């Protein structure tokens, strides 16, 4: 098999959880809610998914449990920040820390357990294409789901009436409220959807990518997904591209190492964050750029009737 094709395949696999979580967080933020709890939600979903798949015997049971666990975590967060109007940043951080501890506690009994064997997935027909077959068409179904999701969310946000309402809630909740839009309900829906996607991403890590459970399995991918939304200037297609870029950087670095080319791996691990800071600095310099995509009421609480 061609090495470049394998590198592309590994990049897609490693970018998929970032893309899923990043797209979920994008939905949150488009509705004006920043959820710094992504890491915690992914961890709880990872162990929930692993445990469910371990006992239930099927990967899909695991994914469902992971998504539900993400929704449950997001519901707690949503209730706190949308109804009790707690500070979004502090609450999100707390959720992250709580999720880290909770997942470790629940997961004690699952460390070192092994999931049942699973068959590898191939896209029938297309997998026999030269180069592309190995590069693109041997991925887990969720990898294709992530690609479709990026397009779906782009269509939803910018082409559908419901997407317009969601964005209005994130841009100017007071105006939306005056128009009779149920701001809190819509924000909660966005938060729950974000939780479900972060949950899928977490379950992907423990069920497909690793596939095993250990404490702290997610190891910072939740934070990278958060950085991604800013890096992508809140555009779904760019979130997907950014996820592959960040995923690819890690794989490329290992590939280079095994070819005997030395780059400090510490330097490469900080690249995603560095890139995010650079993008932030760039877009902040030009107010027009920010205004185009950054939700106007991002991180701001909304009090109906205030």
């Amino acid at each position: 098999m061609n090495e470049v094709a394998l590198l592309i395949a590994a990049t897609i696999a490693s970018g998929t959880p970032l893309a899923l979580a990043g797209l979920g967080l994008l939905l949150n933020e488009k509705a004006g809610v920043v959820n710094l709890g992504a890491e915690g939600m992914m961890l709880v979903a990872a162990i929930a998914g692993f445990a469910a798949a371990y006992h239930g015997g099927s990967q899909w049971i695991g994914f469902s449990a992971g998504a539900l666990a993400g929704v449950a975590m997001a519901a707690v967060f949503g209730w706190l920040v949308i109804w009790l109007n707690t500070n979004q940043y502090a609450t999100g951080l707390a959720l992250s820390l709580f999720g880290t501890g909770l997942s470790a506690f629940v997961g004690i009994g699952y460390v070192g357990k092994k999931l049942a064997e699973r068959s590898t997935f191939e896209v029938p027909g297309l997998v026999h294409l030269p180069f592309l077959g190995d590069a693109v068409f041997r991925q887990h179904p969720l990898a294709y789901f992530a690609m479709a999701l990026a397009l779906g969310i782009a269509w939803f946000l910018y082409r559908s009436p419901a997407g317009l309402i969601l964005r209005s809630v994130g841009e100017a909740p007071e105006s939306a409220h005056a128009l009779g839009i149920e701001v809190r309900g819509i924000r909660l829906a966005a938060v729950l959807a974000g939780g479900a996607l972060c949950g899928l991403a977490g379950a992907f890590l423990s069920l497909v990518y690793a596939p095993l459970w250990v404490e702290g399995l997610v190891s910072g991918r939740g934070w990278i997904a958060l950085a991604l939304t800013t890096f992508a200037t809140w555009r779904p297609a760019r979130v997907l591209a950014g996820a592959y870029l960040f995923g690819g950087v890690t794989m490329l670095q290992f590939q280079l190492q095994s070819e005997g080319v030395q780059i400090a791996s510490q330097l490469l691990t900080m690249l995603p964050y560095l890139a995010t800071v650079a993008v932030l600095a760039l877009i902040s310099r030009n107010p027009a750029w920010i205004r185009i995509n950054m939700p106007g009421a991002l991180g701001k609480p909304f009090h109906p009737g205030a």
Partner: protein
Amino acid sequence: MIDPSRRSWLKASVIIAAALLAAACGKKEEAPAPQAAAPAKAEPLKAAWVYVGPVGDAGWSFAHDLGRKAVEAEYGDKVKTTLVEKVPEGADAERVIRDLAAQGNKIIFATSFGYMEAMFKVAADFPDVRFEHATGYKTAANMRLYDSKFYEPSYMAGVIAGKMTRTNTLGFVGSFPIPEVLRNINAFTLGAQSVNPKIKTKVVWINTWFDPPKESDAAQSLINGGADVLLQNTDSTAVLQTADKNGKFAFGWDSDMSGFAQKAHLASCVANWGGYYKKAIKDVMDNTWKTDRTVWGVKEGMNDLVKVADVVPDDVKKKVDEIKQGMQAGTFEVFTGPIVDNTGKEQLAKDTKADQEWKDKVAFLVKGVEGTIPAK
């Protein structure tokens, strides 16, 4: 919804969350059975272990905990053991070790390299407590060292790998480029070259002991680069499982990992710390404990290569057994000259056996290993 009920609900959830967190913080005390009616008996000797990972990691910390259990099995209610798991190698380590000393533990085992400075500091404040540090190099009147020779099972794994590879390319997932890990990479490669001179080894560094997704990324890139037998110096089962997924071979590390990948698993490089722990406890009981450095290997039963898979041909198994017997008898030394590094420089002269000092300072990769040691 009325306010009071909401507030009590909030309060309840906070309490539950706090309880969960406290429970998750991971301190366990395991007493061997309550000793109610034993007034005549002497106080049990209190011994404590500090682990860097969770005891369930199936790797490094798990292996040390098996050693602790061996102590319990040996001495029964004459000892009372405590363990603290998941202690980060930083400021927390000193606090944990100090606490354990203050709680009356008479001997404390710190099982990771990064605990060295913390333990050294605490040892100065508790002259009556015996401190034992794994894999380090600092000693004091009441602090001594113990270590294993993982390069011995690594060499035997190399012999198997050298015979099983079809691409003549082996892969190694390395944690940090420290002498211990470099010794293992070199021994693995030398072992393989002893049966197959065409062997080359590719190395990928991941700069962590324990990060399963990263370990599996590194393993995947080695496989993509043509390696078909992998070994790792990291603590999870991820490399083995990645090899399994790709239909390649790999080895277990730290503990018997044969259960994690039936097809890929060729053998496991293990350490049995129990023997040393039993000796150390006995030293304290007999008042013969003195500062020292212990490095045990296959000869002393500290290291071994276990669960050699059925796919390994009989003649290879026989060869491994011969080497093992040589190690047990003390006649076989892995690092015997000539040893040439991968820049062509001779590191050990012909027919010379490496001494401990040489092994402590290994800072090169042998000929046949691709790549360089990352700059510090």
